[in-house]
């Protein structure tokens, strides 16, 4: 035993010694090392991306991986690099770099701007959309982007029998189904026809006018994949993404890192600025911040709100704010006594002190919610009279509803942090104290996350904590999912059902004129406000941190953004 131990120790020492020598050797050796780097990159390229011809591989290897390499650290790995068959935010963070949609969102808002389509027309019938595609755009595999590619991609999502749908391999395009009313052959499916007019002109004909169509076309879920790559990789396209975006895929080490390199033939002149982007998984929030402070990474997501102020005053670091695009709420199960009584719901709405919650839980990076819709959205109703914090009134209303002595209920508390609820446990404690003040006894109740979501759809909850984040800036995405009868029970966990609201939302969905749509939403919001199916808690501002070398990084509302214009200063 002793001998073998000694041997082990000795060999370890030897190895360390050799390594130290290898690292510190004379400059002549450094040249050799560089050669090795190239080999490494070449190997990586040919392993994962067979379509790359040798020349391109060499190009990416020669790009110095020092100066313009950005390391972006995040909490979890991506599920898939096929954007259309996943709803995972960590996946779209990557696919946004590799892929582009026909339209794109403005850097600061959800206003649509040209993407792969330079321009578009809406005919007077409000159902015919023509997109004029950018010419000369290449996919990373060298094939041309054209109208045929667009059509192939849309058919892939809408038709489960399409050769690239990969239905048997477990691919499902649920976002497509949600956003376009179903799939080919379904009654609600909004896209009737896709006609190629010529290589760079494509026409979409809808079954009826559809207010959110252009917004949808800009979503990262509807980006264009190279048809040649779909044919080549088949169902492993989720590990071999090939798009037209500013960065091309190099390698993916699961639960660790995804490496992307600059696409030299990117259509936007002079971009991207970075040579290489590495998305690194660092699960623990504090460890991620330590890595940033140690200079090992350049940008980190998921900064604790409490650390934000600290970061801004630290030399070498800077903070970033993502604009508000979410909504955290406390939902009532409106089918369960006593929460089936609007008076009780209103009373409880008056019991919650949102203003006190914000500094306590969000370090001030949030605003109290009045509508179940972020303030920048179409139809946000400014004229509502918010439920103010008023324990007196709450007690009166409870007495009026027949509960002068209050009652006891379970307060369902999320087990995980979400942007709209960074510390659910502490939030539950504060809310518990609020309710106690008006004579209500809230028992904090929690389940593991997967179970939590599952149980909520069964309608066994009393009062529960949850939220919603926007993806395309369309109001229907919030209201239609959270508060329409159609959303029960998958997304509408309050089981709130009001035929007037349903009718208004349905009308708004098929209205194209913005002013009219806004009026319809405002009306629906007023009805919802009166019914109070949920206590609208807050809209939060998620924060990130980065090294002060990072320039032109603008976090987008939709939770992720392309890093096309980002660069690193010396």
């Amino acid at each position: 035993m002793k001998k073998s131990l000694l041997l082990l120790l000795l060999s370890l020492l030897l190895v360390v010694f050799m390594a130290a020598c290898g690292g510190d050797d004379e400059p002549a050796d450094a040249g050799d090392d560089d050669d090795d780097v190239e080999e490494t990159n070449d190997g990586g390229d040919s392993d994962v991306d067979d379509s790359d011809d040798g020349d391109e591989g060499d190009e990416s290897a020669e790009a110095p991986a020092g100066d313009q390499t950005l390391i972006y650290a995040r909490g979890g790995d991506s599920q898939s690099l096929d954007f259309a068959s996943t709803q995972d935010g960590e996946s779209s963070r990557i696919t946004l770099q590799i892929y582009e949609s026909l339209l794109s969102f403005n850097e600061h808002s959800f206003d649509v701007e040209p993407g792969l389509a330079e321009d578009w027309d809406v005919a007077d019938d409000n159902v015919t959309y023509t997109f004029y595609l950018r010419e000369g755009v290449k996919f990373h595999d060298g094939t041309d982007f054209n109208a045929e590619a667009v059509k192939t991609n849309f058919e892939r999502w809408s038709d489960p029998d399409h050769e690239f749908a990969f239905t048997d391999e477990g691919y499902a395009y649920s976002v497509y189904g949600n956003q376009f009313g179903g799939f080919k052959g379904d009654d609600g499916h909004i896209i009737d026809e896709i006609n190629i007019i010529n290589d760079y002109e494509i026409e979409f004909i809808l079954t009826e006018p559809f207010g959110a169509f252009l917004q949808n076309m800009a979503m990262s879920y509807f980006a264009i994949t190279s048809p040649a790559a779909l044919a080549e990789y088949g169902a492993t396209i989720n590990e071999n993404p090939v798009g037209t975006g500013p960065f091309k895929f190099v390698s993916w080490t699961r639960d660790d890192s995804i490496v992307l390199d600059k696409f030299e033939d990117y259509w936007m002149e002079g971009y991207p600025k970075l040579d290489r982007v590495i998305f690194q998984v660092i699960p623990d929030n504090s460890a991620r911040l330590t890595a940033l402070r140690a200079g090992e990474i350049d940008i980190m997501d998921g900064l604790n709100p409490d650390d934000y102020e600290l970061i801004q005053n630290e030399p070498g670091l800077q903070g970033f704010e993502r604009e508000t695009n979410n909504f955290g709420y406390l939902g009532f199960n409106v089918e369960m006594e006593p929460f089936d009584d609007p008076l009780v719901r209103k009373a409880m709405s008056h019991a919650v002190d949102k203003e006190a919650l914000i500094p306590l839980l969000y370090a001030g990076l949030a605003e109290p919610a009045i509508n179940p819709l972020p303030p920048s959205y179409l139809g946000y109703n400014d004229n509502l009279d918010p439920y103010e914090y008023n324990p007196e009134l709450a007690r009166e209303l409870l007495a009026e509803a027949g509960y002068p002595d209050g009652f006891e209920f379970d307060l369902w508390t999320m087990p995980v942090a979400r942007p709209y609820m960074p510390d659910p446990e502490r939030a539950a404690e504060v809310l518990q104290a609020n309710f106690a003040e008006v004579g209500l006894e809230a028992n904090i109740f929690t389940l593991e996350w997967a179970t939590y979501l599952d149980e909520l759809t069964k309608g066994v909850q009393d009062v529960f904590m949850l939220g919603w984040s926007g993806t395309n800036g369309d109001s229907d995405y919030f209201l239609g999912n959270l508060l329409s009868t159609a959303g029960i029970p998958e997304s509408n966990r309050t089981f709130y059902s009001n035929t007037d609201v349903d009718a208004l939302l349905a009308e708004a969905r098929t209205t194209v004129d913005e002013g009219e749509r806004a009026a319809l939403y405002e009306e629906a919001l007023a009805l919802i406000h009166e019914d109070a199916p949920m206590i609208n808690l807050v809209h939060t501002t998620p924060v990130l941190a980065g090294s002060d070398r990072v320039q032109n990084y603008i976090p987008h509302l939709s939770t992720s953004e392309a890093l096309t214009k980002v660069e690193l200063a010396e």
Partner: protein
Amino acid sequence: MLAYTIRRILMLIPVLIGMSIVTFAIIHFIPGNPARVILGDQATATAIANLEAQLGLDQPPYIQYFHYVFDLLKGDLGTSLRTNTPIAAEIWPRLAATIELTVFAMIFAIVVGVNAGIISAWKQNSIFDYTAMIIALIGVSMPIFWLGLMQQWIFAQELGWLPAFGRGNPRDPVETTTHLYVIDTIINGRFDQLWTSIKHLVLPGIALGTIPMAIIARMTRSSMLEILRSDYIRTIEAKGSRTLSVIYRHGFKNAVIPVLTVAGLQTGSLLGGAILTETIFSWPGVGRYVYEAIGTRDYPVIQSGILVIAFMFVIINLIVDLLYSYIDPRIKY
């Protein structure tokens, strides 16, 4: 010896079948729907139903189990529900990461623990003994989470000596063949990368090795104290030599069996239970892989992951048992 080894290996089969049934039963008893987790909290009912049908989750559990075992017998560990990738391909890089970390942690634990234990026993009730045993007590009780964060703060952030996360420098990725970075870098002749890989092992290795180190130190000490009281040591003493080298040469050999047992058990549990260390140090290991699979109800990954971990555990125990007879020829199988 050979017959014993074969018998022990055959005994693996019922153990693994039992493991797979228990795992399967447990994960199907806990509520939660993988289809819903995959599609997220903003999915529609039809989407969930479609995905369930595609994944075969709408079939009765015993059918699902038989499908699983049948595939397993064909050498197919299944496909991850979450990533749609074969588990056999996914699990090895993670297992390699965990093995590398475990080996490093155990080297640290054994080298430090055994020596501290021997010296403590030799100088029983001395200052060294007290200090070493107090440190061991602290080591056993130390929350790894806290220790890891403190290490990062001191050695990565303040001093900048060691990296805070990962297995290598992401700017200069290691070309992998075995996925054991220490070996891969040697194969590639990249000794600068080897040095980087070793530096990445230091903090998580020490964090992970601290508890086993403390346990081994205490076990070595008590085992050695017993030996030091035995007749043959007294004889050596009577001949006038009680040097440390005598204790190492003559004493430790007889004290090693219980230490080996503890070390074996600790190695086994580190292989499966290093989730905290793997999380704090962003170490893409098998513990985190299975842990995340539980969170997303990725049934095949949970099943196969636990099966692989159980397999490793049993194998390590077997190796330890075989080592007994090598170290102590009186033990015969």
